[in-house]
């Protein structure tokens, strides 16, 4: 943790990890999706539409996992002022929002044939849509706060922490309230899902997660590079202004 507080050391590790994570993630995802689309069986009631599962569920988990990561990083930023924590949180937001959007879109596509509707305002669907809007708000706030280590960054972190309240609500929405969305199939080592579906789902989740990790590292490197470029430009501008004064 503290060893990585040094951005130079972090950058060395990140540079080394980004490509293997992305390449490995793409390979594992390709295998999982081919498995899910062509090898895994059709489900008894849903038929072929069950195959949306292998994109929908990993996206949902990572959309929620992304905000959990934002909350943890925000906490670390607020308490320990860890220089990389805020950068990590901001790097997670875009892929997290993207996965959440993919979850909502694939869920809607599945809902039409399975339920008979594209969308309903039940607890699960509504709270997941709220998560997407929270991501939009977070991105707008992080953008407005800029890259400087100022109060704006702290406001963004507080927003990331408060928004985490929605994560347990999403999880428990199908247990606390009657909803059209089904309750979780997998919980605490038990699965109401046959292994024929479960194994490709887990492989797909590994692939999606690796891609997520690779994208986050790449974005953190980009944000750090941006900050360095800005510092250098500012130093140069100061130097020029100073030399003009001297003339």
């Amino acid at each position, binding site marked *: 943790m503290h060893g990585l507080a040094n951005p130079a050391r972090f950058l060395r590790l990140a540079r080394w990890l980004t490509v293997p994570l992305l390449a490995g993630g793409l390979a594992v995802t390709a295998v999982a999706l081919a498995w899910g689309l062509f090898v895994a069986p059709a489900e*008894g*009631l*849903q038929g072929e539409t069950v195959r949306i599962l292998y994109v929908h569920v990993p996206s949902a988990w990572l959309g929620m996992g992304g905000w959990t990561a934002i909350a943890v990083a925000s906490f670390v930023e*607020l308490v*320990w002022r860890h220089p990389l924590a805020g950068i990590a949180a901001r790097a997670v937001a875009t892929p997290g929002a993207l996965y959440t959007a993919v979850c909502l879109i694939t869920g809607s596509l599945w809902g039409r044939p399975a*339920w*008979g509707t594209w969308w309903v305002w039940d607890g699960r669907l509504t709270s997941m849509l709220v998560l997407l809007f929270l991501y939009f708000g977070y991105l707008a706030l992080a953008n407005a706060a800029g890259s400087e280590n100022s109060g704006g960054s702290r406001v963004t972190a507080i927003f990331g922490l408060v928004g985490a309240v929605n994560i347990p609500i999403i999880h428990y929405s199908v247990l606390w309230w009657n909803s*059209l969305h089904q309750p979780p*199939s997998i919980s605490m080592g038990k699965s109401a899902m046959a292994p024929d579906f479960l194994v490709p789902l887990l492989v797909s989740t590994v692939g999606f997660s690796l891609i997520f990790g690779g994208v986050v590292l790449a974005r953190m490197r980009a944000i750090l590079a941006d900050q360095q470029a800005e510092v250098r430009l500012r130093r140069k501008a100061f130097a020029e202004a100073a030399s003009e004064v001297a003339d």
Partner: protein
Amino acid sequence: MSAIKPKHQRLVLLAIALVALIGAALLAAWALRNQASYFYVPSEIAADPPAPDRAVRLGGMVEQGSLQTEADGVTIAFFVGDGEARVPVRFQGIVPSLFKEGSGVVAEGKLAADGTFIADNLLAKHDEKYVPRELREMSEHQAQQVVAETQ
């Protein structure tokens, strides 16, 4: 005061804020426990029938053997039950493909004065069980044999 490091002060403050936040969220969720439900179950309809002109949603299981098509060929009638109460439902129109006896349904409509639920839309509810098609079509006994063989 000088004994407390700013780092620890922030940690304590933030921990207190988080506890308050989680408490507030739980209270809000608890207050919403009835309002946020997507449908009523039959025992709730039986205990407290909604006004005849109020649009409500009724959710439960389509009772085995209760599904009937009426003489006009497009109206169906069935019972929705939750193990405690059952409500007769009538619906005219196209049903979703997952709609069948023994599985979950959410009916949107109104409760008529005679206690029949007149649905103007049906949504099929999928449960959390995912079973391959081949296993679903087998009898319970056959399915157990297949599972036993593969283990």
